[in-house]
């Protein structure tokens, strides 16, 4: 099955091997500037092998607006935000309705919750709404890496099928 037929539009990839080599574009969504700074610095310092570009959004509303016009490969999503929570934002992305559209590519983008709300019930909810993983705050580097690599492997698996 070709990549084009899965996504419905052309990607600049000819094979899964190229996905290994292509660096990813990441969106970080968090209403707290301290958390945004730390996470972006982590990606900048420790994930240069994976991440090409990072974009910061301070609300779920801003994130949805950006996802309507620009493609991303990964979203790191805070959960407890005013107006639209991380869960509500994820639901909107996955549902991709005409009232709240995102680019088709973004509808299935891996979303990792990054939050202090990391109890078992909350993790189950995140999975239920379509998040691929949950990383607790304060962030442990190895756990962030494991979550990101796991999320990206999930995408590769889809492309290879």
């Amino acid at each position, binding site marked *: 099955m070709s990549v084009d037929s899965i996504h419905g539009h052309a990607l600049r990839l000819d094979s899964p091997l190229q996905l290994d080599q292509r660096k990813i574009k990441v969106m970080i969504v968090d209403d707290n500037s301290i*958390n945004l*700074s730390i996470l972006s*610095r982590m990606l900048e310092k420790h994930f240069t092998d994976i991440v090409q570009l990072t974009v910061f959004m301070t609300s779920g509303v801003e994130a949805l607006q950006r996802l309507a016009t620009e493609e991303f490969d990964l979203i790191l999503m805070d959960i407890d935000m005013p107006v639209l929570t991380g869960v509500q934002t994820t639901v909107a992305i996955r549902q991709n309705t005409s009232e709240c559209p995102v680019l088709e590519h973004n509808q299935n983008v891996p979303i990792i919750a990054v939050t202090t709300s990391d109890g078992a019930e909350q993790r189950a909810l995140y999975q239920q709404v379509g998040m691929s993983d949950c990383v607790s705050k*304060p962030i442990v580097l190895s756990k962030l890496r494991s979550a990101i690599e796991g999320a990206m492997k999930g995408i590769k698996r889809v492309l290879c099928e």
Partner: protein
Amino acid sequence: MTATSPTQAPSTAETAINNIKGTEEPEVADKGAETETETDADEFEDNGIIDHTTFDQLLEMDDEEDHEFSRSLVWNYFEQAEKTFEDMNNAMEKLDFPDLSRLGHFLKGSSAALGLTKVKESCEKLQHYGNRKDAAGVNNITNEEAETLISALLVQMRREYNEAESYLKVFYDGQE
């Protein structure tokens, strides 16, 4: 200070307040009241102010020989915390519990990110009290109990923040 067991709700609000306040430490609600005695940052280490695993991870993200990133982050946190405390006081005057809960959660995130253990734990309690739950976030409490608990907690939180701020300022002064 006697710590309240996280699994037990206080039988009365008064008991909870006494547990929070303790008996041996003076209340410091105002930043101007803090002492100016210079203290080696190491003396704070056993007081549980800083989670060094988290804080050290932050320092590792600094460029070599330069703590500019972590320093600017910490000073941004100071500004954020001062603004948040002001918002908390305003919300307390209006008894706006949902706002107090939101503010507690907000500051909890950045306090946790910097490894400020005690401040983070107090922020979590504020989050719960603002939701009219006990410290563990399990049992319901009344508005009156919430008001009393939060009032005492804001004093405690300010004291813990002052401690953390002093520690961090001494740490960064020592890096120059």
